[in-house]
């Protein structure tokens, strides 16, 4: 092989390898939306659907009872009171239930928070349908205020038989710095 031919061949391979490197760098970032899609489809990682599901009237499967437990916790830096009104409820698949969550802002300033849900076992997240949830939106609370936040849900009757208990956990994050205009307007009208 002549010298120039060798160089040309080298250049071709280098180009392909550099393209691969660029492609893999892009792939690293593409994993982010791919992961979201994957989680949504498989229920992987216990994320619930972040949108309301219409409460279609359906058969209530009274032969089965599933225990739904509620857990709340505060992320770092948010001193709110945040707890479910009941620790757990027993429901039949298909039955629509409302559970209230109590929130209070003990600080001297107006704050905005958002609750992020997670379900364990992760598999159950596919069958937990929320008709209404405070977690869909940011929650504004003026200084010293308390509120009751409703969460209306039902379990899909298709929920696998081996799931007899599921835990819905909410983590509350301080979103005051990133509040949407809509939330801020609510905060102002409440004062």
């Amino acid at each position, binding site marked *: 092989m002549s*010298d120039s031919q*060798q160089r040309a*061949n*080298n250049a071709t*391979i*280098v180009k392909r*390898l*550099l393209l*691969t*490197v*660029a*492609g*893999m*760098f892009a*792939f*690293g*970032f593409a*994993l*982010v939306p791919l*992961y979201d899609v994957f*989680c949504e489809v*498989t*229920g*992987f*990682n*216990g*994320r619930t659907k972040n949108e309301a599901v219409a409460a279609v009237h359906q058969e209530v499967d009274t032969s089965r009872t599933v225990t739904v437990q509620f857990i709340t916790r505060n*992320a*770092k830096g948010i001193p709110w009171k945040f707890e479910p009104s009941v620790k757990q409820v027993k429901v039949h698949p298909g039955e629509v239930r409302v559970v209230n969550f109590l929130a209070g802002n003990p600080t001297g300033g107006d704050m905005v928070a*958002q609750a*992020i849900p997670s379900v*364990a*076992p*992760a*598999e159950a997240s596919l069958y937990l349908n929320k008709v209404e949830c405070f977690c869909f939106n940011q929650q504004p609370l003026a200084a010293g205020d308390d509120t009751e936040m409703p969460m209306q849900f039902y379990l899909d009757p298709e929920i696998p038989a081996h799931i007899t208990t599921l835990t819905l956990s909410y*983590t509350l*994050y*301080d*979103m005051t710095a*990133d509040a949407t205009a809509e939330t801020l307007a609510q905060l102002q009208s409440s004062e």
Partner: protein
Amino acid sequence: MSTVVDDIHHEEHHDHKPSGITRWLFTTNHKDIGSLYLWFSLIMFFIGGAMAMVIRAELFQPGLQLVEPNFFNQMTTVHGLIMVFGAVMPAFTGLANWMIPMMIGAPDMALPRMNNWSFWILPFGFAILLSSLFLEGGGPNFGWTFYAPLSTTYSNDSTALFVFSMHILGISSIMGAINVIVTIMNMRAPGMNYMKMPLFVWTWLITAFLLIAVMPVLAGAVTMVLTDKYFGTSFFDAAGGGDPVMFQHIFWFFGHPEVYIMILPSFGIISAIIPAFTRKRLFGYASMVYATASIAILSFLVWAHHMFTTGMPVFAELFFMYCTMLIAVPTGVKVFNWVATMWRGAMTFETPMLFALAFVILFTIGGFSGLMLAITPVDFQYHDTYFVVAHFHYVLVTGAVFSIMAAAYYWLPKWTGHMYDETLAKLHFWTSLISVNVLFFPMHFAGLAGMPRRIPDYSVQFADVNQITSIGGFAFGLSQLIFLWLAIKCVRGGEKAAAKPWEGAEGLEWTVPSPAPYHTFEKPPKVE
């Protein structure tokens, strides 16, 4: 062009090379760059080793004795980063630079200028990483795996330096890998077809493809950490719609192939040394090639076995468990091939062979503890305990590092033109072998008994086992000074080495004189 060729012919006898510091700064010679990489990795090995000594000194007794917990965390983190990216990977790149062109009959690496660049950015990368230890608040303290949110929400201000140093190391590895691939694909001597290449060349070719595939993903992961921490993105922050568990998926998509990057070249080294000192051909050459390729492909399908306790669905846990266990099959093929090579061979036990034999036995122990960790239900007990520490130190220290030592002893006569001091080398081997087992074997028991990793203090029932471990650690650290002394002694003088100092050695590198001339295979050799 013809004058250049004449020059080279003239100089073949004097073996002319430039002198002074500029020789090393501007060199494009694969042997010089190989030496730079090897010395650099040895220095990093001692720096990372010193950090391990701090860790073992703190753990000598229960309670906090010597260092602050935050500093302890920095030590575990930077020890890991230095050993992975500073010691093991550059040592393999150094060996690749020195040996691959000579093994395939090429005059140099295909892209010599890039080769210079890929080495010389490394010291800067590590200078950045190490300097962060001296800043207010300290260096990275979140473990070498830099899980979010430890590395985002809770990390200290020097995290940007960590990120930039990782970028530099990544770029260096990618350039090194590109060079290896182009050299192997394009520069082989006539007649050196793929299935005639030495296994070290094969394993490095596959390693280089792994590097190309996963180092960019690591670069992406550190970039996401950077923007999450400093620019308000929420890749790994649940409050903003991100997910901290996703960090672990992205990291281990890089991280698992990475651990094979650190072991596949070892397989090539051992496959060269065992036949040489057994005076037999390697058993099952083709199966070795296919086994290496299978391990590389499977390495992309097992990343979540690092994450069994994150709450994965049972189906995913089973999938990753079975894929992980599947890797034992090609790895077993390799171990059995090495054993079959030794079967009825005329074996002698010079130091390279001793390290190679220790590799086969101790790496297999590390493989078995890996299989135990692969079993999902029991991993819940072993996860984040010293059992994991014992496992990966068996595969990385008695695996990767022992194979690098074996390679150094095997090729030192070729590099320096002198035989190393066999008495010192035996002393180095036996002290290392005994101390490394005193160091890492008891960790299995500490882990099974529930001692968590990465914690500067422990419950008193672990005191005895930690004391033994620490004594082994100090002894192993001191033993490596013997190697430093031996290497310097060997460079400076010693018994003259023949072109082929090992009776049973095979390969083109033994057809050139020792020390290997500055330029070799200007004219391609004939390969039958």
